[in-house]
């Protein structure tokens, strides 16, 4: 198990290094000169040059990269070109809100998706199944910004139950996490259903019934445990969607998170921030998938004990 985790971590480092090269090249491919943007409209040519030096944008790109990786490994992510703040501080303040939002969204959508998936798997072919599935599929059919605005209109403006944005207390989590998680909940529900239906036809489920295990036990103990195995992998992939989706949701709900920061920093060509952020996103994604793989091994003894 430990070996497994270590091996995966090694792979992770590799992926992240590649991502860092990618990102590094990518920001430099973006048309637009950060020095110019930073220096501002009134700046002279010398000012711009000075800013460029300040931002470490001189010399050949590979040298910049080596310097950048060196600094990054030492934990120094540089300063934001736009705000002149250390990137760490910039991102640090926004990391937790995004993480929490994603986790809450992931949490409810997983629970909800599993429950609905199992329900329609059990009642497969009947109206409960059909309704649940059409509803679930609806969840992935909404453009999220529209859903978000509709939710605000209904729950904040008309009913006055929930705040329109911010990350102040649990109430402010409700709407953004619903908006963010709806798609994932739907995907998981459908996935769980088909995994469940597949498992329900397996011989060992029949064995459980032949033993006289009550239907509830058959579903929750024998079938679901096995159905979870493919679902768990799905959860990891869906997490990537959540991270991406947070950009839109954070804008609609004025959530002080990384997604909005990213859009801002891209339009400002704030290289250090873009780099650090994409790296962070990727790390998060890769780590979550690592966790998922570990979970996978937990639900699947065959992997664990190999």
């Amino acid at each position, binding site marked *: 198990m430990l070996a497994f985790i270590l091996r995966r971590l090694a792979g992770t480092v590799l992926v992240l290094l590649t991502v860092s090269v990618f990102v590094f090249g990518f920001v430099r491919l973006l048309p637009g000169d950060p020095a110019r943007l930073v220096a501002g409209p*009134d700046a002279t040519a010398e000012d711009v040059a000075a800013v460029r030096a300040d931002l470490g944008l001189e010399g050949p790109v590979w040298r910049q990269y080596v310097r950048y990786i060196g600094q990054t490994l030492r934990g120094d992510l540089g300063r934001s070109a736009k*705000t002149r*703040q250390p990137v760490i501080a910039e991102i640090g303040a926004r990391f937790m809100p995004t993480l929490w939002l994603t986790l809450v969204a992931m949490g409810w959508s997983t629970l909800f998706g599993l429950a609905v998936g199992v329900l329609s798997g059990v009642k497969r072919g009947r109206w409960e199944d059909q309704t649940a599935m059409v509803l679930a599929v609806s969840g992935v059919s909404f453009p999220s910004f529209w859903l978000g605005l509709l939710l605000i209109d209904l729950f904040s*403006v008309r009913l006055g139950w929930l705040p329109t944005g*911010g990350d102040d207390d649990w109430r402010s989590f409700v709407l953004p996490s619903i908006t963010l998680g709806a798609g994932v909940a739907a995907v998981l529900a459908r996935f769980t259903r088909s995994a469940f239906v597949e498992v329900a036809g397996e011989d060992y489920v029949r064995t459980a019934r032949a033993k006289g295990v009550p239907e509830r036990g058959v579903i929750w103990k024998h079938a679901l445990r096995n159905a979870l195995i493919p679902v768990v992998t799905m959860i990891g992939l869906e997490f990537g969607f959540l991270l991406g989706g947070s950009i839109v949701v954070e804008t609609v709900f004025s959530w002080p998170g990384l997604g*909005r920061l990213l859009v801002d920093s891209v339009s400002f060509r704030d290289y250090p921030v873009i780099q650090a952020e994409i790296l962070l996103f990727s790390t998060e994604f890769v780590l979550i998938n690592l966790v998922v793989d570990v979970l996978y091994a937990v639900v699947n003894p065959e992997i664990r004990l190999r």
Partner: protein
Amino acid sequence: KDLVIGVDSNMPHLDPANTNDTLSQSVERTMYQGLFGFDKDMKLIPALAEKVDSDETATEFTFHLRHDVTFHDGTPFNAEAVKVNLERVMNPENHLSRRSLVSMVSHVDVVDPYTVKFVLSQPFGAFVNNMAHPGTFMISPKALAQYGKDIATHPVGTGPFKFVSFATDTVKTTKYESYWKPGLPKVDSVTFKSVPENGSRFAMLQTGEAQFIAPLPAELVKAAQGIPTLNVVISPSIIARYVALNNMRKPFDDVRVREALNYAVDKNAFIKIVFSGYAEPLDAPIPPKLAFYSKQGEWPYDPAKAKALLAEAGYPDGFSAELWGATSTLAKRAMEFLQQQFAAVGVKITVSPLEAGVSTAKLWNVQKPEDATMQMDFTAWSSSTGDADWGLRPLLDSKSFPPNLFNIAYFHSAEADKAIEAGLGSADPAKRAVAYAEAQKIIWKDAPWVFLSVDQLIAGESKRLSGVYYMPDGGILTEEAALN
């Protein structure tokens, strides 16, 4: 009594000398003040200086400071503090983006603790305006020493509110008890919250999470007016909207083509469609609220004439061109509208919304005029000094071609240049007025741009709120805010 103001973009940081956006300036204005300032109508008023004297040639300015002001950290405000601040901005080593405001200052002399003299290296008539600009706000010298670069996130000024916390989308300030203006401030705190999504920002006002939002998108005015607890505040601005044409490129190098394009756009329809009616036609190269504005009339909507002019210029069937602009919904709407209007006279437009980074690169980073790829650019300008100079010189003087300044139209007219420089050569308002009237007349006739409109500023506020003003440059004044 806590005031929450919903705004549409982030506040990168709060170092006034390094700030390029109106919004951050509004936030800075809650905590900082300059020697002079603007009132809600953009009129120059004394602030930390009680009065100013200047010499005939506009090269020496002596400011007489107030005696009763202390910074939030207890440091007294005096001539020494002014000198420290000015020298910070002037020092090229500091790479502060607002240095151009004081680049003409050769040195600062402390005459006595409350009198300070600025000696300029060249005449600069608009100098007092520069001293009212947020770029020259006064920062506590002690705090400057203490925080260094981090002053950007630890503002210490003399304004009505003290700094509490900073995040690029939320800035919190609290009442400064020993503010020098008696009876102010009247609210306990002011919080600026960035809510970029229009609908969300409006929702925030409706639910009472904010008491003031700016801007309120024009399309929502009707909805807001229908809500009894809300006021819609509409005020004039100094934001001019126009399409810059590349005067050095075919076919825009032909004045008849430029005229034709001006005739081709129905400004009233433009205002109705794009701004839901909340704007005024632009009737001079600068908006009416800027000093030395001189009305030039209007380019009437006359597609027939436009066609005739095009034919005369050798384009009977029109031509094709690319129109650039920002990616905001509003810009896209405007460009789409222009596309339709130009199509009616045979000019086929491809609309290309450019992301901010791309457009700065394509517009400002051009090294030689011949390299400019821009044909038409839908854009806007707001002269942050409130003066005609900054409304004309950076955009239309032939010395302002990129990469120096922003004459992306590559407009070059010797007479216009002369008039603009004359305006700057004197501190005498009367002389300046003549010069700028001349400049505006020349430019208007030459039609380097398609002149479109002047925005109206729209804000939404709770009926409980008073004393928050939306200034013509888009800034927000919160000093007198009161809630009941």
